[in-house]
């Protein structure tokens, strides 16, 4: 870029030198640290989002493709882009899916533990107000350890601050004979990890997300209905209002991402009311019968 002496002189005169104490930028080129994320949550009440899934399930790809959608459309679903303090960190994650990376097919480099952090989005909700989202981008190795018995709290000391838990099920595995059962079992382990008291706050929301859903054949879809019902039952033991999403962030048919609209609308919704969940009619009936017998 520096072409000749005058340019070199210009560069030298503008060289940043050693960063000074006050040289603080509002944005970050890397994912935000836990402390940086805390400063946002304390001031603006951001919504902290954790995608739960083992290595290679597609958590970072979902985040990167969401960023690409926002760049290309300015909106996801009814939620409009209002800014980001980590635009360049998103760019790093999205870069290897772009033609200028030189690759012939898109990849998402594996997230390393030392790169764990939070990506920030500011969204305008349909009602007109803004929502700050802090999307945890963490290595799936944490969830392998959870599967092996570690507590979520051991892996993430900020777990009680999470407002949205999206438990990810890898559709590619669901569609692959021999891997399907393992994938479902692993997802169920993550759901169990959410069940201990105090992990999921009463205001937090939980959802099940099938990613790479475009990998499923018609036959797979027929079977998946029951799988989803069973997993949802476990999810709803933690959040009775939990939805299930089916996404294809980077479809194999080269089409646009699918299913992200619903995910973002859910992320941007209000938290659950802190009141106890409304009980189903049959439970109320049982209680009424119990009182009658007393």
């Amino acid at each position: 870029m520096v072409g000749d002496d005058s340019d070199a002189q210009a560069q030298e005169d503008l060289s940043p030198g050693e960063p000074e104490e006050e040289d603080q930028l509002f944005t970050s080129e890397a994912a935000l640290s836990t402390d940086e994320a805390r400063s946002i949550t304390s001031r603006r009440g951001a919504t902290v989002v954790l995608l739960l899934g083992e290595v290679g399930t597609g958590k970072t790809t979902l985040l990167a493709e969401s960023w690409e959608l926002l760049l290309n459309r300015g909106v996801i679903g009814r939620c409009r882009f209002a800014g980001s303090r980590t635009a360049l960190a998103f760019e790093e994650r999205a870069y290897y899916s772009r033609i200028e990376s030189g690759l012939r097919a898109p990849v998402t480099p594996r997230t390393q533990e030392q790169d764990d952090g939070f990506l920030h989005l500011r969204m305008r909700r349909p009602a007109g107000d803004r929502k700050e989202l802090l999307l945890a981008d963490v290595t799936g190795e944490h969830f392998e350890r959870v599967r092996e018995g570690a507590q979520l709290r051991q892996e993430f000391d900020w777990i009680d601050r999470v407002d949205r838990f999206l438990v990810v099920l890898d559709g590619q595995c669901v569609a692959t004979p021999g891997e399907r059962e393992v994938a479902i079992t692993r997802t169920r382990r993550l759901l169990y990890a959410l069940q201990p008291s105090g992990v999921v706050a009463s205001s937090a929301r939980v959802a099940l997300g099938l990613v790479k859903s475009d990998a499923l054949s018609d036959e797979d879809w027929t079977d998946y209905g029951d799988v989803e019902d069973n997993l949802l039952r476990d999810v709803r033991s933690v959040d009775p209002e939990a939805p299930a999403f089916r996404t294809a962030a980077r479809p194999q048919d080269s089409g646009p991402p699918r299913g992200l609209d619903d995910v973002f609308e859910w992320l941007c919704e209000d938290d659950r009311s802190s009141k106890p969940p409304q009980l189903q009619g049959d439970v109320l009936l049982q209680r009424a019968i119990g009182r009658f017998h007393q």
Partner: protein
Amino acid sequence: VSSLRTLALLGLPKTGKSTYLGALWQLVQDTNEPGVVERDVTGDRSHLQFLGEKVALCEEIGRTEVESTEGMLLTLGFDEFGDAEISIPDISGETLRVLVETRHWHPRIESVLTEAESLVIFISADQLRVPFSISMANGVLEEARRTVPASNGDTPGVRSPSGDPVGTSSEESAGTDPDEATVLPEEDDDTIEVQDPTNLTARLKIPKFKVEKASTAAKYVDALENLLASRRAHWPVRVAIVVSAWDTPERSGFRKPGEWLRKRLPSVLSMSTVNGDMMETRVFGVSAQGGPLPEKKADLLPLSVRERAFARDGDGNGVPIFEPLRWALWG
């Protein structure tokens, strides 16, 4: 602290600031243009004169001709509105590039922002780095293979997410240089290892992402976040977004700068419009030379800068080329 209204004129390198200043300077000197007059210049006045003459002579201003070592402060009188200061931390755009790419507040840009009540941000229609996915490119090529007979020697055009040809417009050429992204076989600090997406048993070493490779939209999102945060006490800040080289999009069929921004940089437009408590934004298109150089030089040269330089508001209505400044100052 000046009692005059002050705005900061900013943009990344090669976004048309120097050509705009040259054209503005010619207008200021033009006695037939009553809308804007010179009051004072702090900085290298001869350089301003040089830029004005380059525009008057229909000559492109090269990057090495842009003086970066000194900022500039112009005091101008705007007919019916009053006097105001136009503060330029550097004409080259290096201070904003340094902010985004090397993550540093240059003292000069900090100083300008301390005084400025409003901002004029330049984006070049000619220098966009648009994110274009491999998947989409592969999809288009696959479709082309299916629909174009093999014997046909024509190369089917690849289209961008917005439907415009990629590689056929100078607007989008900045992001598609294949030489910049060669897969490297050797280990290097600047490479990253990934799984080969076309061969699951192999690993690839590819060049690492660098901030200068970021999309234009992401760079402006990052810059705006920092600029607005630095002016938090003065929200909402008026921000005029100037699409320079506006004759280029017009030749592609765009009539409204606002529409162009919506199609080319929708995230920047969205950010600008949904944060009403932080910023008030208007989009303008400016062609400071009046047409493409050197192609149209013979047609443009006989005309004065006042006659050929033109600007549009967001809806495509003709406005004086100093209107982005006037709006940013007085609304």
